[in-house]
């Protein structure tokens, strides 16, 4: 039907690109930007799971990613409120 390997490569590319962007991307000194950048890597992982037909894992990943983001944002905003220099 269609090329499955292509999807794996796209997924890996996205994952690597996303992690690179998270680590060294522009403006990652700001934790908010860094957190949003992790989304790219997680979509890459989602694609790999999709191609490997692990759809249940995919479902779980999508819903936990949101919650992890929420937690991270909570930590960030809380720390900024306290005025902590972390």
């Amino acid at each position, binding site marked *: 039907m269609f090329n*499955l*390997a292509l999807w*794996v*490569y796209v997924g*890996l590319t996205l*994952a*690597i690109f*996303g*992690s*690179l962007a*998270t*680590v*060294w991307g522009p403006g*990652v000194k700001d*934790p908010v930007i*860094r*957190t949003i950048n*992790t989304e790219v*890597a*997680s979509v890459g*992982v989602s694609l*790999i*799971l999709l191609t*490997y037909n*692990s759809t*249940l*894992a995919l*479902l*779980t*990943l999508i*819903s*936990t990613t*949101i*919650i*992890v983001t*929420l*937690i*991270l944002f*909570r*930590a*960030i*905003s*809380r*720390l900024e*409120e*306290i*005025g*902590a220099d*972390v």
Partner: protein
Amino acid sequence: MVASIVPQLVPAFYSLMYTTVLYGGLIVAFIGLIGIAMEKRDIQVLILTDIVGLAMLIIVAAVGTDLSEALILPGLVVELAEIMAISEILISHEMRKKDVHTSFTPIPLNIDMEIMTTAPNFIALLLIGYGVFLSGFTGGAVAGGGIVIYVLSRKVRGLPVVVLDGVGAISGISWCLWIIGFLFFFILPQYWLLSLFLAALGLLLKVASKIGLIGIMMREEYGRK
């Protein structure tokens, strides 16, 4: 017929892609770890450990069997829980470091988004319903997401401690439920259907209530004035 449904050996696709995917996972892990090694600020390291967790998922998924998927599922939820606990420690650490007498209640938020008044009820209901149907880890995560979004969108500022304890109690009970289910499988194998339901629903309740807890903890952050 039967042989075609489940092959004896791992299909060629998985074994062909294994090296690639594993290398990809290793690269992602390497990038994340080097990023941690170079980073100095605490919160940034916490965000970067998320990447390391994703790399772990890739490496486990690369095996490409049902077992590997079963290993991923809980791993995801565990990763989530650990981030939660550690971020909480970070916050309390910073609070301790600061002056004790300053107020630490979050700044109230004053936003009025149309979407927050109408959509969440529906979406949350749908998600919870779907999660209950799914059951297990996946269902727990989905339903938990629904609960989070519901709590987040409502004006539930100042929810009492009792509710938290109640949620804890639910999850404790469901945990027992599910352990009983697990033991049933081996002690009384003839009741496997009953134990299946005990286990699935116990886990659902447990995960969902725990994730719902996040929402309750968030209500201070995003609960509007």
